[in-house]
């Protein structure tokens, strides 16, 4: 099948929806001729014109708020924040307006907007341009939260996001933009709340998100050589979360490791681990659940420190060994 990069898949999903539906449009900083901070929208203004590919002032609060207002009155805006760290400036409009309007209005009105934004570290952009803050939005009722890890997933999930009648926070990972994968040309939807088992295995379940899916897969490859069969589950959407697939996997493998790039303390890993611990899977666990996440530090600039700040393949390999040994010994 045809291959596209993750970045191209994002662009294709948006372009296909925009061709079909005049209500869909884009707003963001430098998304016109410049093509956006990471080049995702390159060429789109030429096809769709500057009314539908709207270059905005550097005004993240208004970008979000104007999107909410336009969504509430019949449009389906997609907004791009250049770095996900800038969501800090748009939180009021996302959390106090977008997420709550329908509920506050007693079920009237809807806010079909997609906020797309690149997150994660690894580019040397330092503390204010490298965060993974998805746990914040996952905590807010009324929002949906997506973290695609492959070119195939990103296209299908973005279509679903655009079609969704609710505000969706859609995290793209900077380091994945150039990754290639097979992507069908025709539009397709990947439902929210359906985890994807990226690799089947019998010994341990790793629930990993975004970039960590790939690190987990690498770790699994290495461990396979030692005869350890790792299952890698990619939730793809944090809200809604496919609890069932995760729980069933853990029941099969009896071991769970949760890995994300975001700071471990207060990260979504705590939610996933606790959810499993509260489920019937608890009684099948042969070892304590282990979480891997970012160190409790701002992301440093220096390349080696930057790597040390987030889980790497060796950390995952080590965690698997630890969980399996721990499990065998103590229970």
């Amino acid at each position, binding site marked *: 099948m045809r291959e596209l990069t993750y970045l191209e898949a994002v662009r294709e999903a948006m372009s296909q929806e925009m061709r079909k539906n005049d209500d869909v449009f884009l707003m963001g900083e430098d998304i016109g001729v410049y093509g956006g901070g990471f080049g995702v929208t390159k060429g789109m203004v030429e096809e769709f014109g500057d009314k539908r590919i709207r270059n905005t002032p550097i005004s993240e609060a208004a970008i979000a*708020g104007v999107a909410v*207002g336009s969504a509430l009155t019949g*449009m389906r805006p997609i907004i791009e924040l250049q770095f996900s760290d800038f969501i800090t400036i748009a939180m009021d*409009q996302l959390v106090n307006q977008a997420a709550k309007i329908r509920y*506050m209005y007693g079920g009237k*009105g809807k806010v079909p907007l997609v906020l797309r934004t690149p997150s994660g570290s690894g580019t040397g952009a330092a503390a204010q341009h490298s965060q993974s803050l998805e746990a914040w939005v996952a905590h807010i009722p009324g929002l949906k939260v997506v973290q695609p890890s492959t070119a195939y997933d990103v296209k299908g999930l973005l279509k679903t996001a655009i079609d969704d009648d609710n505000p969706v926070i859609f995290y793209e990972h900077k380091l994945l933009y150039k990754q290639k994968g097979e992507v069908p040309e025709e539009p397709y939807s990947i439902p929210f709340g359906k985890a994807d088992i990226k690799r089947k295995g019998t010994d341990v379940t790793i629930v990993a998100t975004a970039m960590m899916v790939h690190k987990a897969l690498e770790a699994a490859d290495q461990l396979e050589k030692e005869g350890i069969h790792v299952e890698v589950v990619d939730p793809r959407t944090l809200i809604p979360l496919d609890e069932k697939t995760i729980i069933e996997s853990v029941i099969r493998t009896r071991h769970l490791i949760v890995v994300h790039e975001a700071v471990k303390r207060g990260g979504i890993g705590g939610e996933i681990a606790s959810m499993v611990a509260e489920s019937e899977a608890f009684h099948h666990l042969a070892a304590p659940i282990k979480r891997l996440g970012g160190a409790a530090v701002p992301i440093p600039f220096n390349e080696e420190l930057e790597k040390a700040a987030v889980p790497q393949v060796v950390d995952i390999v080590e965690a698997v060994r630890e969980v399996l040994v721990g499990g065998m010994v103590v229970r």
Partner: protein
Amino acid sequence: MKLIPDITDEKLISLYKQMWLIRLFDEKLEQFFAEGSMHGTTHLTVGQEATAVGACAVLRDEDKITSTHRGHGHSIAKGARVDKMMAEMFGKITGYCKGKGGSMHIADLERGNLGANGIVGGGIPLAVGSALTAQMKELDYVTVCFFGDGATNEGSFHEAVNMASIWDLPVVFFCENNHYGMSSPVSELVNIEHIANRAGAYGIPGVIIDGNDMIEVVNATYQATERALRGEGPTLIEAKTYRWKGHSKSDAMTYRTRKEEEAWRAKDPIIRLEKVLVEEGIFTKEKAIAVRQEAYQEIEDAVEFAKNSPMPPVDELRTDVYA
């Protein structure tokens, strides 16, 4: 009386009635809060009736407004039913938000009221978004965005007005300058004489009007909406007015003088309109009293309706989170 848009006598009388509806609605609430029979809090419009009514007088159903925490006036002026509003205040299922929103979230999408807002300045970008929809879909409607003097110090005001200006969006920024935020005099928190002067930072017209003169409000809003509908972009209107009551349910009003309050009470916007209408022969003093009485009865009926309405069942807790 120099009224620029075409408005029938009948309509003028109905605007007069709306002003009474607003005042009586809010005075009723004041009473409920004083007796402790109402949950939550509220922000009363009393004294500011002319801005809401005058601005909405030139709007059609398809035109939109965004409102604020002090939003009952805007709702009524944009055509909301006082019984459903009152029911909302009582947290009843028959209220505009099924009792889930309360005072600060009354919305009436069918009549173009995109909703009150508990976040000061929060509605300003929403209004700009609504105007963007009109422009993109080439729909013939205008959006009037209400906010207070205090809200103009929020970043959301700045960002949203700038965006509306560069895109020539059909929106009217309507600042109800009642001279205070919660307690802070605007003169201490803004270093210019008129909020309308801020228009200059965005290259849009700024207009200063007497917010207690409904006729002037009608005229200014009419010109701004016409301009917006012609595609010439936004206007910032600053209407000087005053809230008679405290900021919210509990306010000792230590930050202003009784004398100042008295001076503003003397500028009662309802009495003022009444005088004009009588002078112009649009109605008689007796008719005015009758209209007021009608408004009074509507509010009484609304209370009746609200009190007799059922509470939302507990399973309403988990509905309406997602569309």
